[in-house]
């Protein structure tokens, strides 16, 4: 079959699934799926860039997504002047000193003679640096966290337009990726996997514990939104009139309007990124990436800078994940570090890329939508299936109760089975690489 027709058919099918959700469940949930599907598609694009283009095995997606979420807080929340006065300079100075001591250590490393002197010197530099850092940093943090801890207790953000946080999220993730890439990219693929897995956990640990930065597990709620509030719309007579003329009650209409607004913005971002990724794929750069992926030694022999290119694509892919993370936090309207789980934010994205077709941008986008749709819909479907299975059992049977109660857990099982089936019978995914 002509691939163009096949791909269009697959995307049409995906659109049908979402439309069907709208007709059978509610338009609200259809738009919810669409919005998170768009975000997931962006994440999948990022992972596809790393894995599909360059064969880099990054299982730290969650960390980059969370950094994007942090960017949303740092950009859009209003600053807390009292906290800045209490400890702002102290925290900045502390961080600067910490960075400086690491810098000194890096500078000194090649200059010290090998052997015991070097080990001793490095230890002394790092230990003294750590002590100074804690001396300056700790009191400042304490002062900040004491400022009105129930409502703020953190430095706040810059109070800028929230959409600005999307590119900033990308930059933040790119910065983290640069540090990780510099230290871990030379490693073998499964070492890189473990390294990225660890980094992601550390990012989440920082978000959970550094209350001065992100309020930790107290969460930041009420982030500014790029679209109007539902309540404002409902109080706007012009909007209510328009809604009633379309035969909708103002409540539903306002919620749909807001979600459509998000969908529109996310679609624009996805299309831009998709266009860029397609351009990259079909450029000499993309061909070089794939050449490196398929045979590193040969590419190196042709004079390609394998390590440099790997670093480049690792940063780019991570930045896209950061953008998606900022978009997601904007959509949620809150940053809740406790909800970041690797199964949902790292491995699910991997399922999207593999199922969609690694190495193909359209495949990754399709996978993002499809897997997100399944992730949401498996729950009601399995609950329904369990109802049918247990229909013959006694009303009060404990087995029946357990099965009905645990139906929600079938989500992970289904994702695993989907991934294994695709890997086995269609290892190149739904839309394979050309």
């Amino acid at each position, binding site marked *: 079959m002509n691939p163009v027709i096949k791909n269009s058919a697959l995307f049409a099918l995906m659109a049908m699934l979402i439309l069907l959700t709208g007709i059978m469940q509610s338009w609200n949930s259809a738009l919810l799926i669409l919005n998170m599907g768009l975000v997931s598609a962006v994440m999948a694009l990022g992972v596809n860039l790393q894995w599909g283009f360059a064969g880099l095995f990054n299982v730290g997606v969650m960390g980059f997504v969370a950094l994007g979420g942090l960017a949303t807080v740092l950009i859009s929340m209003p600053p807390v002047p009292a906290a800045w006065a209490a400890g702002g300079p102290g925290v900045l100075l502390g961080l600067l000193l910490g960075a400086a001591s690491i810098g000194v250590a890096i500078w000194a490393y090649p200059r010290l003679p090998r052997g015991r002197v070097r080990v001793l010197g490095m230890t002394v530099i790092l230990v003294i640096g750590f002590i100074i850092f804690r001396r300056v940093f700790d009191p400042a943090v304490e002062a900040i966290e004491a400022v009105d801890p129930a409502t703020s207790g953190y430095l706040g953000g810059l109070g800028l337009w929230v959409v600005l946080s999307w590119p900033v999220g990308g930059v933040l993730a790119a910065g983290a990726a640069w540090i990780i890439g510099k230290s871990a990219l030379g490693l073998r693929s499964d070492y890189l996997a473990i390294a990225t897995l660890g980094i992601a*956990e550390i990012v989440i640990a920082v978000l959970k514990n550094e209350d001065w930065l992100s309020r930790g597990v107290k969460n930041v709620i009420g982030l500014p939104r790029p679209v109007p509030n539902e309540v404002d719309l409902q109080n706007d007579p012009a909007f209510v009139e328009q809604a009633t003329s379309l035969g909708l009650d103002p409540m539903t209409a306002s919620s749909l309007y807001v979600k459509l607004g998000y969908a529109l913005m996310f679609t624009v971002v996805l299309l831009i990124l998709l266009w860029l990724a397609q351009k990259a794929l079909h450029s000499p750069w993309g061909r070089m990436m794939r050449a490196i992926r398929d045979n590193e030694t040969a590419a190196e022999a042709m004079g390609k800078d394998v390590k440099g290119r790997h670093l480049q694509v690792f940063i780019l892919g991570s930045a896209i994940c950061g953008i998606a993370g900022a978009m997601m936090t904007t959509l949620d309207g809150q940053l809740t570090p406790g909800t970041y789980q690797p199964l949902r934010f790292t491995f699910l994205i991997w399922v999207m890329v593999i199922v969609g077709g690694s190495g193909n941008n359209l495949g990754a986008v399709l996978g993002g939508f499809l897997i997100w749709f399944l992730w949401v819909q498996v729950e009601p479907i399995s609950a329904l299936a369990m109802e049918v299975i247990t229909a013959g059992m006694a009303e009060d049977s404990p087995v029946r109760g357990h099965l009905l109660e645990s139906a929600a857990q079938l989500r992970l099982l289904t994702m695993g089975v989907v991934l294994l089936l695709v890997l086995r019978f269609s290892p190149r995914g739904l839309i394979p690489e050309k």
Partner: protein
Amino acid sequence: MEFLNAIVALSNYVLVPALAYGSQLALGALGVTLIYGILRFSNFAHGDTMAFGTMITILMTWWMQSVGIGLGPLPTALLALPFGIAGCAAMVLLTDRVVYRFYRAQKVKPVILVIVSMGVMFVMNGLVRFVIGPGDQRFADGERFIITALDFRMMTGLKEGLAIKTTQGITLVTAVIVVGVLFWFLTHTRTGKSMRAYSDNEDLALLSGINPERVVLVTWLIVAALATVAGTLYGLDKSFKPFTYFQLLLPIFASAIVGGLGSPLGAIAGGFVIAFSEVTITYAWKKVLVYLMPESLEPSGLVQLMSTDYKFAVSFVILLIVLLFRPTGLFRGKAV
């Protein structure tokens, strides 16, 4: 006296917990390292394999408790352990038959196998959550302490107490027995030797008539046993929660890599290195230092280098240091 008190406090809060935790990590890392050595991929499903074996053990423990079978002062779970191992072995053999064998026959790249193991991870994680639920489960029974802090203080007359939990004692004893049996098996039996030969040089091993499928089968059986034992000991010592077991993946892999992937001895060493660094760096040293330092120098803060939530960071940093300066690990594992 002051010095003795310091030592007791140190043992109570650092040495004993780290020894127990290190043994659990070592057992987990042994499983990872064996799969790496024989099947040649990093098994991301290992944490969930541990959870699966532990789940069967817990279910059997509950059943035994309900019909009144027990071990007196020892936890009933020890009696249920063989059933857990059997269940876990059945599960991993099934996954090998249904999933991994296909790819082994195709001789795919290791990274594909890693992705496949991601799928297995999802399935096992889902299964465990489906059967036993995502919440915390406690299944330890019997005597809680070998020696309580109060008894210790009465016995010795020291100010500090040393409490040793039964589970910590059992962990250490079991780990020693299991590791002893494993090393005896690997060095003294024909099957064990063939496993080592297969791990060292696959082609030569095949040439000398070693049956690869048999080696793989035995490996999975050993891995199932190791994973179940490690998981059950961890669950007894702390508590059982599917998500925690998934998260153990990081320290376990760190242990295996720090020791040198593919080297059983390295896995054990790595487990203790990771456990001791995690505990010492996240421990508040004030109590120990108060005994050791003259009064004028006593610390005012807790002297905790990092908050306990950063324990992942510790295993990770050690992992990174080892990878940068000695990529094959402490014990020269294989770097394929």
